């Protein structure tokens, strides 16, 4: 599935929930599904600046040249958001990650629903993931 297809899939999944409380419930579930990040990877280098809660994102390169991400946060909603974004980028090539449009977050309605602090945090996470994409081509 391409990045765009995965984004479309998320848009339709979120559209199934009529209220924001239900959408949040789904985000929380996504957070719970995120594999546990090894404590040794919770280091300053992986910490995203600009979030109210602590968020770590780490990336490694698979043998076939695609990227593998692991992440964690001490806040479950934040973790759900990382999980949502990483579902799109997991197993993709660096260049494709850099080139990917991020309009799907708007279509989900997530951006307008978030507080400025949270959307800044989200922007910081995306920037970090794209930086990994750029450096690990």
């Amino acid at each position, binding site marked *: 599935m391409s990045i765009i297809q995965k984004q479309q899939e998320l848009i339709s999944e979120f559209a199934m929930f009529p209220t924001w409380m239900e959408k949040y*419930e789904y985000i*929380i579930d996504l957070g719970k599904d995120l594999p546990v990040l090894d404590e040794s990877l919770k280091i300053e280098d992986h910490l995203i600046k600009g979030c*109210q809660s602590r968020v770590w994102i780490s990336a490694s390169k698979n043998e076939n040249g695609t990227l593998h991400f692991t992440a964690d946060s001490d*806040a479950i909603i934040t973790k759900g958001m990382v999980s949502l974004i990483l579902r799109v980028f997991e197993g993709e090539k660096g260049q494709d990650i850099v080139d990917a449009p991020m309009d799907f977050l708007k279509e989900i309605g997530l951006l307008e*629903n978030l*507080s400025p602090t*949270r959307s800044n945090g989200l922007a910081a996470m995306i920037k970090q993931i794209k930086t990994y994409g750029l450096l690990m081509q």
Partner: protein
Amino acid sequence: MSIAQQILNIRREFPILHQKVRGVELVYLDNAATTQKPEAVTACIQEYYHQYNSNVHRGAHYLANLATARMEEAREVVKEFLGASSVEEIIYTQGTTDGINLVAYAWGNENIKEGDEILIATSEHHANIVPWQELCKRTKGVLKVIPLNPDGSWVSNYADWVSPKTKLVAVGWVSNATGVVHPVADMIQRAHAVGAKVLIDGAQAVSHFALDVQQLNCDWLVFSGHKLYCPTGIGVLYGKKSVLESMQVFRTGGEMIDRVSFSGTTFNQLPYKFEAGTPNIEGIIALSEAIRWYTNLGWNFIHEVEAMQKRAMQDVMESIPALQWIGQAENRVALYSFVHPEIHPGDIGALLDQQGIAVRTGHHCTQPLWESMQLTGSARASFAVYNTEEEIAYFKKALIKTLDMLS
């Protein structure tokens, strides 16, 4: 008329409270950050701009005289509110932080010498920590800190931190993070006994109980208008006249001068000595209107409302044992900080927000307090005179649902 009915009547004066956010009725519980403003206050700002906007003190015309008169009447209102002995003791500032900085420079630079001690408490807001840390850097003074009990109150032997070297005690009356009321009246006596001056940070106190600075006998007291139903950007520094007179000037420029020449400048008398530049005229007028509006409700009524809120919150606390309620000392105001051992406060705040409830989450500008409790912050619900029992019942329901979703 029942209290509940009276609160509903008061709510009619706050248009902002009658709206839906995220599809549900707004429940505003972030009053320790800032209160909403009644129509009487916003109307007086409009009246000022529509009818007598003008620069004060210097004008030789009708409007300037009217604006000046209103601004000086306003000072009289603040004087009465604080129980000060004269209007010369009322200095307008931008707010609490500004007032503390003024004292740190205009009094501190001159009076704190190497080795002199400044005493604060672990419960202080950053605004009552950082200006003193900076003053200590400038003067080689020493900052001393009263520790807290687990319930958020000062340790019972707090007076032991006052020493012959203490030159200043600067303490918050009511903690913005826990709601705990600290024994400042006793502290003032202890400090004066060793010749130290005392500054009271009254930011969270002014809306909760009547003040009398003469009875209290503090040297300075600072507060912000916006936590007292008035707009942001205006506050008050009360100072004893003799103390203010002995202080150096801080900001310099217009309004605060007596005569300027290149051979030397002399300064205006109190209170203008500390009010450089064109003042926040609309803010000053609005502050007096807010004080008038609030005190007209009557302290008895205000205390009855707060007692109702505390009773209702007692039920919330007992119903949700999974939460840890921080700072449950006996003497406290209707302000509640809470944490969950496994849930981030930001998550709680986000889901309450989705249910129309405004609370604050984070460190509330009291990082040393959280560090002393081995926490990093909390979610905080803080109440004002317009918060109803129904709102607290809804808060309880929403909070239970929130924790359910996050557990």
